[in-house]
């Protein structure tokens, strides 16, 4: 690019060009020229397209040795150049990769399979709901909604799942902010899926969204004391024993999931959030990441 700029400048009217004699002698190897003349003509050729064209015309006509040498080098180089060109990543792929690395600020690659699993479970529950082979009048989507984000949050801090865990734990950004970022990204994936599922099955939004958020907040609050992953496991197990199992056994929506239970979920959400804010300093300690 800068070369073109320079050659445009060289085209400016009134600009001197190298004489035909000098160019001819330069083409023959420059042995008949004084050293300062060679120097000057080379500097001029670098900047002047016109003289470069004149030089190549002279070389093509008068100096077959140079032409064949250039031809040989070029034919040897060309196939290799073609290979490098195809190996270079496409611009689209580059853009996609840079987006991926920006995405890593919100979720680690280790979380992706878990989120995929959470989405798969949701879709399965939806399928069973729609087909109607599930638990009759109880919506499976509603039953699973609260624990799904908790699994994702657990995965985002699990020591065994995240290879860069030790590095993350020593970084200044480790702490509540990063915990919240990853939690938000989990919710960002899970909530839209649940929204579609809830709409398809006709469950009221508040009915699954409140338990879902309350459970997430409770996981983080408990996680501040015993570790996020451990807290998630405890809460998910509690959910399975106290609500999932009785509901599936009796085929009746548990009290907690009916609209009457909503204030209790709201209270849990507020309490959980309060605890998280009060204990925000605790999240940078390794223990809480377990």
């Amino acid at each position, binding site marked *: 690019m800068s070369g073109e700029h320079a050659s445009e400048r060289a085209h400016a009217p009134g600009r001197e060009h190298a004489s035909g004699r000098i160019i001819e002698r330069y083409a023959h190897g420059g042995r008949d020229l004084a050293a300062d003349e060679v120097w000057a003509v080379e500097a001029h050729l670098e900047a002047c397209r016109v003289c470069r064209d004149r030089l190549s015309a002279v070389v093509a006509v008068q100096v077959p040795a140079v032409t064949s040498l250039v031809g040989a080098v070029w034919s040897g180089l060309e196939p290799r150049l073609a290979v490098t060109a195809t190996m270079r990543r496409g611009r689209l792929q580059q853009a996609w990769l840079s987006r*991926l690395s920006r995405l*890593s600020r919100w979720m680690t690659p280790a979380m992706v399979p878990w989120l995929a699993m959470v989405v798969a479970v949701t879709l399965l529950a939806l399928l069973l709901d729609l087909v109607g082979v599930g638990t009759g009048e109880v919506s499976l989507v509603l039953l699973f909604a609260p624990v799904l984000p908790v699994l994702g949050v657990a995965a985002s801090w699990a020591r065994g799942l*995240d290879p*860069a865990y030790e590095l993350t734990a*020593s970084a*200044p950004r480790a702490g509540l902010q990063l915990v919240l970022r990853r939690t938000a990204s989990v919710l960002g994936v899970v909530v839209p899926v649940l929204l579609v599922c809830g709409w398809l099955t006709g469950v009221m939004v508040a009915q699954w969204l409140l338990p879902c958020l309350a459970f997430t907040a409770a996981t983080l609050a408990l996680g501040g004391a015993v570790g996020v992953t451990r807290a998630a496991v405890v809460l998910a197990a509690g959910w399975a024993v106290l609500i999932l199992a009785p509901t599936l056994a009796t085929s009746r929506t548990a009290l907690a999931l009916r609209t009457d239970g909503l204030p209790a979920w709201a209270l849990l959400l507020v309490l959980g959030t309060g605890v998280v804010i009060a204990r925000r300093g605790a999240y940078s*300690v390794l223990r809480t990441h377990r």
Partner: protein
Amino acid sequence: MITGKEHHMTSAVNAADLAPTPYAWEIQATGLKVRVGRKRMAVDGLDLRLGTGVHGLLGPNGAGKTTLIRTLATVLRPTEGTLVMLGETAGGLGEHRALRRRIGYLPQEFGYYRRFTVREFVEYMAWLKEVPKADIPGAVQRAVERVGLADRADDRMKALSGGMVRRVGIAQAIVNDPTVLLLDEPTVGLDPAQRLRFRELLQELGTDTCVLVSTHLVEDVAAACTDVVLFAEGRLVFQGTPDELAAAGGPEHVGDSPLERGYSALLQKPGQERGSW
């Protein structure tokens, strides 16, 4: 290339660089104890003061080297005693954000994301270390060049050899220009030529950084360290220059070099017989 964009003038030194140092030692531990698991004290009453320079942390397996380094990296909290780093007490509650920003850490088991390129991974680490956004591309390029991976910067991590991965680990540790650099077994997996390059890098870093390198290799210490810290069973056995370590050993001690003889002399001083390993 004319881009039409002018470069911003940035001053070469900022206020933080010019501020006087409010501490005498980068790392100062007094009676430091760190419990690992339920009972075992991996670091058991350590008094240690480290300043600028390259400090080699030597010791047998299970001496507590990794625990000590993880504690200094603020990953583990001290159970007892005080640990003052860069003038700030580490180990209490609180986030240690400012302190962590000035620490570089290469863990013994360096985990990474296989699908990331070298540049993406070091960028991600720079982001985690809160390097200012505008400085990240330059800092990443500098770190990658310093470990000699500039030509592989856009390769995926899974395509790298073990030695290269280790060098990425060193690059991520120095990307935030740390004042305290903690390297746990950095030379594992490096071939002899890379090890030489690495020692040069260490010496260069040691001019203005407090570098603590844990290693099994006595020759690493001889070549690159200004100071040796010998550590056994959670306690400090010896601290001094490599020459002083060499002077501690006599011809009757086990080892192929003066340093190795000094090492075995200091570790077997109480006369008790350890296992052959």
